[in-house]
């Protein structure tokens, strides 16, 4: 063996690129933390100063007042029902929209672009903004909450599933086409069976998110537990807030465990 073969390869010169990236991150960080530019004023003194009055309330949070529990059952049920209905409607709407938005199932470029653009815009608006505006339009209640959840879910489910269809195995669809099927027949018999597991798993995931989101929608008047959260916050009942948070925590974790188990079976 010659000596040349044993020498180490030259080290790649990565430091200039790392320096540039670090520099950009540092510049953005400085810009975003300058109070004169409207950035975030990292005020550690405030934490040191107000720690006392904050600690008192946080301590109350950790001593939950369970006497509020009976009052939470009805809003909690409302939250769960809203989440379920929202997911159900979104799931039903997502099937045709997904087929519409994916390349193999919709060969028409124009309509595909329209659906994708609309869904991108729908996704760009945060959930609580929908809720705020819908409450102002049609009044308080669970209806604006449900519409919000449907919009929110459609954005996620259709995007993820239609991307999966795009990268799915196209040979089945080609077989369908070779056999002389119409696009609708191909979608029904070759595309849909391929995406059901993925679709089910995404819908379960959005149910999980919905429980979390619908718990706070009530803060703006869209029904569910959020209204109670807003109320106890208004009265500085942090011990009651602690109970409600604990309750949300238990419900979310239970749903997460169930949906994880179901999703494992779907795969």
């Amino acid at each position, binding site marked *: 063996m010659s000596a040349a073969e044993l020498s180490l390869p030259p080290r790649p010169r990565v430091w200039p690129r790392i320096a540039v990236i670090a520099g950009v*991150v540092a510049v*953005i*960080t400085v*810009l*975003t*933390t300058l109070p004169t*530019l*409207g*950035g*975030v*004023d*990292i*005020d550690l003194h*405030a*934490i040191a100063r*107000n*720690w006392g*009055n*904050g*600690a008192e*309330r*946080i301590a109350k949070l950790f001593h939950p007042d369970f006497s509020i529990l009976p009052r939470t059952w009805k809003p909690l049920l*409302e939250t*769960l*029902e809203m989440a*379920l*209905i929202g997911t*159900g409607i979104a799931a039903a709407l997502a099937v045709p929209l997904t087929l519409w938005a994916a390349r193999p199932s919709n060969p028409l*470029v124009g309509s*595909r*672009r329209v659906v994708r653009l609309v869904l991108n*815009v729908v996704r*760009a*608006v*945060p*959930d*609580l*903004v929908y809720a*705020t*505006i819908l409450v*102002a*339009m*049609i*009044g308080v209640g*669970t*209806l604006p909450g*449900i*519409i919000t959840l449907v919009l929110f879910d459609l954005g996620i489910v259709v995007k993820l599933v239609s991307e999966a269809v795009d990268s799915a195995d196209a040979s089945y669809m080609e077989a369908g086409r070779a056999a002389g099927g119409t696009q609708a027949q191909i979608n029904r018999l070759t595309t849909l069976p391929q995406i059901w597991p993925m679709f089910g798993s995404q819908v379960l995931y959005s149910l999980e998110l919905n429980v*979390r*989101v619908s*718990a*706070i929608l009530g*803060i703006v008047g869209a029904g569910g537990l959020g209204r109670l*959260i807003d109320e106890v*916050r208004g009265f500085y009942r942090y011990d009651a*807030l602690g109970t409600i*948070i604990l309750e*949300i925590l238990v419900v979310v*974790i239970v749903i*997460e465990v169930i949906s994880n188990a179901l999703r494992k079976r779907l795969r």
Partner: protein
Amino acid sequence: MTAPAISFRVPPRPSRVVVQIASIAVGILLVAAFWNLGIAWEKLATLPSRLGHYGALMFADPNWSKLPEALYQTWRSVAMAWVGALLGVVVSTVLGIPAAAGVGPWWLRLPLRGLFAVLRAIPEIIIAIIILTVTGLTPFTGALALAIGGIGTHGKWTYETIESVSHGTAEAVKACGGNVLEVARWGLWTVASPELMSLALYRFEINVRTSAILGLIGVGGIGDMLTGYTQYRQWDTVGVLIIVVIVITMSIDAISGAIRRRIMEGATVRDVDRSV
């Protein structure tokens, strides 16, 4: 020689009893929820006309004089999102690496995973409500809430990423006698860092959306303006705010998405017609 007879019969359909029972159960649950909730459906009938009416109020003649203020407030939201992402990512990386199987011992892994699960379950806005008792109604509160709320999901992503990368280099470092820190730095970080960087950028994207709603409780930013003008029903200004939110969110997603693709796929791969 005769060819063996080929059966052209269709194979028997697999049993679908479980699926059928499950769909019936889901159906009953849905109907029960509809029944029990008592939704004011009559409002739904008026929704299209209302949407048209308010849509015209919002977008027919937007009040562009509020644009500078809207842009300034959006900048504050984005600043909140950035600082929150930076703090959150640093903490979740430090906590997430030891939480990965094969890196930290079980007595460290389990409590860390529990912490992530608990933080994941609490909505950011509730975390902000708790923090504002200490820091007051400032963007700093928003940034802290985003950081702490982000640790829940980001910590989970971090340990899952590290568990899913190839462990060959880590074993090589271990075989050379590296300790836990050396394995993490030279064995795992080098392999997992592109994906972790991409996730960090994604965290920023998510934070931009969330920061737009944190203003609801008064910590500042575009959410503050949105609630205010919606409450006073100044729809022409609300229209401007919605346009600003949509444009900024979509541009940040597009830029960060392009950078993420570059990190994951390298410089030579050009964007292969993904938008269609």
